């Protein structure tokens, strides 16, 4: 696998860890439990299925999921040394794809 892809996925997993920490360790663990129990995914599976994380968070927090997703994205952009620009409407997948695109130039 492309090294950049591996680095991106690693950064995303770490960003999820950091983003969910806004709930505290206990809250983060509960989210991982939901991810595992209801979707059969671990956090390591999220980079290849990011929409599952979005679905899981929305299922639990409703509109509140956006606050967590935003923290995850900000953390990811920081890790990838990309500039995070706040948009009027937030879309996790859009930001994720943009991060990939910005890093592109290289092959994914």
């Amino acid at each position: 696998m492309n090294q950049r892809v591996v680095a991106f996925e690693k950064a995303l997993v770490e960003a999820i860890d950091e983003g969910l920490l806004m709930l505290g360790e206990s809250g983060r663990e509960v989210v991982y439990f939901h991810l595992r129990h209801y979707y059969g995914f671990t956090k390591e599976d999220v980079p290849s299925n990011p929409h599952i994380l979005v679905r899981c968070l929305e299922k639990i927090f409703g509109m509140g999921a956006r606050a967590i997703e935003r923290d995850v994205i900000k953390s990811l952009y920081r890790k990838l040394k990309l500039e995070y620009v706040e948009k009027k409407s937030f879309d996790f997948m859009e930001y994720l794809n943009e991060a990939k695109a910005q890093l592109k130039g290289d092959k994914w």
Partner: protein
Amino acid sequence: MLKIYKLSLITIIGLVALYTFQGYYPEFIALFSNAFPPLIAGAAVIVSGVSLERYWRRISDKFSAIWLYFTCGLFLWFVGEAVWAGYTLIMGVELPYPSAADVFWLAGYIPFFIALCSYVRLFGGALTRKTLVLSLAATFTLTIFVAFALFIPVLEAGDDPFTTALNIAYPMLDLSLFSVAHLGLLVFWKGKLGKPWLLINAAIAVNTFADIIFSYATVQGVYYSGHMIDVLFQIAYLLFMVAFYVHAKEF
């Protein structure tokens, strides 16, 4: 999960029926209305404590702190209920208002408010500025309306300043809780956490209504142990208890 809702509904119907037909057992209802609140408030503290145990890691952990504040708030309200019961059932004071119980009830609002604020603040970014402004404007209007509706009869009653302040303080404090809690409901409405937040809002709304009526009733001198208002306070505790149970179950 459906079981807990059914059980709560049956309990609410039972309580309302018990208070409705109190004419047949006035002595029992006087005893019940003083003895039951510490029990239901105590049960709410236990359920909140179980949630605290579930979410607890350390005080610096946000979720741990939130549940510690919720439990502290409910515990202080439970102590308030226990002190009131002590006055009425042991010391034979007919209407211990104002009394030491108020110190605990008032103190309970502080950690409860902190808990609600901390929880909602975590997800504050999910609310649009427009929603925030609209909902705060609605709460402000409601507060002004309640304040004016209360101020006139409470001030006209000519009670001592402390009693007058209490008659106004409780509904206002309830509204301050509601001003934050309804934001939580807006944030979590479509998620699993929407259910417990709906119940928290319902509990606060019932409590607010009960406190407004209580203020009126005491000002008019028509409140007595076993008054229909008491059932509202008990329903509020029940709703808090179910809210925290559902929260721990859903998340």
